[in-house]
């Protein structure tokens, strides 16, 4: 009778210290497993996978262990005639992987490897009349793609290529009763979408349109007794929400509403002492995605062994400083 609180229990012998070296080794070795089943099955997101791996390595100070030349050539081969970039060779272009590619090349300061002008054209061409963005020519609309569009253009210094006012109008039309945002107008609030929309509003200088206290409350209520964060009410905690939720809170100036000690404990418990890397929750299988967001979450909370991460772009702050991109953040 009644709803039980869905949560995990952290075992007393769960990892409690940051195993940075193990994570660096895990990521360094990950790309070499090209004959692995998991690796093949995830080819459809390879570009994002590379972005996750490189970013976490850079945050940990181990970027030099990755093969810059190989990756740059790979990205070149993934840019299509329309300007858009695909996840891997032979796959179709999409905004998701266009952003990941631009993020990688920004990390490497190698944007000249691709035709930047065509990327801008591609992004511009995906904006719809109502201001929304399709992910690709097939027309799926989602606020994730609004974020991908402005983040890509901001990194290239070409935000004015699109109709920013209309884009803002669309994202705001996705704001819900609880202050959160969903995929499309009328969609339920979800931490991932909230991250995309707050990131979008930060880049477009419209953070004052957010109901910061209301949204901040919804976000801080994602923290469960285990200390971990879920993505929306009555879901299990997941390390990746340490990023989506925490970054959103940082952007709207309310990160202090989370109990940092308890969250840290949860994130550290998601580490795998044997293999390195982070899993979604303690005891599960690790992967680069959760490894990045565990490390990035710890960075947001001030972990000194990790470089400062930018909450809007999920890239090292020093990279954004280099390219002079400074999205607004509320205090």
């Amino acid at each position, binding site marked *: *009778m*009644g*709803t039980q*609180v869905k949560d995990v229990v952290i075992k007393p012998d769960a990892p409690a210290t940051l195993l940075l070296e193990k994570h660096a080794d895990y990521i360094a070795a990950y790309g070499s497993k090209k*004959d*692995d*089943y998991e690796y*093949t*099955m995830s*080819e*459809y*997101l390879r570009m994002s996978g590379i972005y996750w791996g490189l970013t976490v390595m850079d945050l940990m100070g181990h970027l030099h262990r990755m093969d810059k030349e190989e990756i740059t050539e790979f990205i070149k081969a993934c840019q299509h005639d329309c300007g858009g970039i*695909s996840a891997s060779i*032979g*796959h*179709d272009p*999409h905004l998701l992987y266009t952003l990941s590619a631009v993020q990688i090349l920004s990390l490497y300061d190698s944007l000249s490897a691709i035709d930047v002008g065509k990327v801008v054209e591609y992004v511009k061409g995906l904006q719809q009349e109502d201001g929304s963005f399709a992910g*690709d020519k*097939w027309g*799926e609309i*989602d606020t994730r793609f609004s974020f991908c569009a402005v983040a890509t253009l901001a990194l290239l210094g070409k935000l004015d290529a699109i109709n920013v006012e209309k884009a803002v109008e669309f994202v705001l039309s996705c704001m*819900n*009763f*609880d202050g959160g945002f*969903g*995929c*499309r107008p*009328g*969609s*339920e609030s979800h931490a991932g979408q909230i991250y995309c929309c707050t990131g979008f509003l930060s880049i477009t*200088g*419209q953070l*004052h349109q957010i109901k910061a*206290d209301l949204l*901040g*409350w*919804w976000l*801080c*209520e994602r*923290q469960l*007794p285990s200390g971990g964060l879920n993505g*929306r*009410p*009555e*879901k*299990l905690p*997941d390390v990746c929400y340490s990023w989506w939720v925490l970054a959103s809170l940082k952007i709207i100036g*309310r990160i202090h*509403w989370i*109990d940092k000690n308890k969250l840290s404990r949860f994130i550290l418990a998601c580490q*795998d002492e044997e293999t390195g890397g982070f*899993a*979604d929750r303690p*005891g*599960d*299988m*690790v*992967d680069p*995605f959760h490894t990045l967001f565990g490390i990035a979450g710890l960075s947001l909370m001030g972990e000194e062994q990790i470089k400062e991460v930018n909450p809007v772009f999920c890239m090292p702050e020093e990279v954004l400083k280099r390219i002079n991109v400074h999205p607004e953040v509320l*205090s």
Partner: protein
Amino acid sequence: MHGRLKLKTTEEQAEEKRKEREKKMKIAVAARDACFEKRKRSVLDEEGLELTKQLLGGNPDFATLWNFRREIFQHFEKEKSPEVLQVLLEKELSFLEACLRVNPKSYGTWYHRGWVLDHMPSPDWARELELCSKLLQLDERNFHCWDYRRLVVSRSQVSCSEELDFTFKLISSNFSNYSSWHYRSTLLPRVHPDTCQQAGRVHEGVLLTEYELVRNAFFTDPNDQSAWFYYRWLLGRADREETVSCLYVSREGQRLILSFSRPVNVLSPSAELVLFVDSLPLMVKWRTAHPKLKHSALWICDLPTGTINEACSEHSFKIHWRDGVVQRECVLYRGRSESWCRDSATDQQLFRSDLSVEKSTVLQSELDSCTQLQEMEPENKWCLLTIILLMRALDPLGYEKDTLQYFKTLKAADPMRSAYFDDLRSKFVIENSILKMEYAETRVVDLSKKDVTALYHLDQLLLVTHMNLSSNRLQSLTAQLSMLQCLEVLEADDNVLEGVEGLCGLPRLEEVSLRNNRIAKIADLQPLASCPKLTILNLQGNPVTEATDFQSELALLLPGVKDLIA
């Protein structure tokens, strides 16, 4: 990659598994290569459908393959008759349904289904609605399914009322209803719009029936958080209309200041802000109180010299905003140093719910019910928070003591949210101070010893001359504090201040006390250099006073400060 438990196996089991995976991988790679090959050669046929089907069945997130399938169907659209196409697309729907049963959360699968329906000669939207209902029975929180349902509803023109009934059914029979309550929040204002046409708000009569519905939900299960979230929305207010809440003029400062009901940017091309002085339009430059603020509730213009002069017995100042839709004016008489026209927070019911008296009695009984529930469930933090919100809605000043007591209980019941509750309590404390200040008709705000952790409603404090923030838990005086353009004296002793960002460009600020804080570097005091009238500064008990050359460095930074206490 979510929810996959890591199991330990023997070496033998591990080797067997490895072989199996290698086999699976080789098959997947071969199929993928075959698909890519066909596509390269622009071969769009049934075999392509077969090949992609195999792969998508096991890996529905392989988006390129859905694209390929669509290309094949687009080809069929040209080549085949509508009847044949219909049959083929019906088959596609069966395939998609099988995919959804295995993985109901793949963006690609759902999008493709919508695409198929949109390309079918005879789409059966009623069946789609039924599919959604069935899948929602299995997982009421599947947002993909809800979004698809909303697509179906818009294509087949199902009414909002029908959908409202659907949510009612789900809420009445299930737990885990957040998605339903959310949907309701979008439907209710469309089916029963507020009579004053406030966007997103609900007609008052219906509102009260809705209160009952929600109350039943959280009484049945006090731990069902979705009901409590929804209830908070019901208690909330519509967004304030964008208007000018205060127009202020200073003779000495030759300055005119506007306070808006929410942050705006008057410098944007569409802004249309016009100033009339003595009935004549005057071109002026507007600025915010702090360079950091691009959108602000406060805008300042420095009037050209001679605009205000002693020769005139009076000057009239008028503002047109939004093409004259909003107008504000005030008159500055000779001999008066300042003048203003301001909306009072009390009259505006800024801090309480604007319900009619009879409806307030209903809320009062809601409060009584919640208080009873709280006695039965003393640990339930949702109930405690809701009681506080109801008290604020009904009578912020009358319930002041009770509210503070409930916050103590709330923090004990939910310590993880302590920082949030502290800030929320601070907001309410400040609201009450503003109401009391208006009642007393003074321009002095005393917030000392009130355990304040954050500053709110600074846009309401434009006229304040004296402010006491001492003995609180403030970490910073943020840029927003620069909106206190009339501030003359600030006391902020015994806090945990690391910076004074907001004490920037305050034209009338004369005296500042920052005893026993955490100001560490001279550079932290930089903003004070832009306060032209600052003469008295107390920095006792701050680490900065220990710095070498403190006195000389400070004299360089703040030459105007004649009375330094350190």
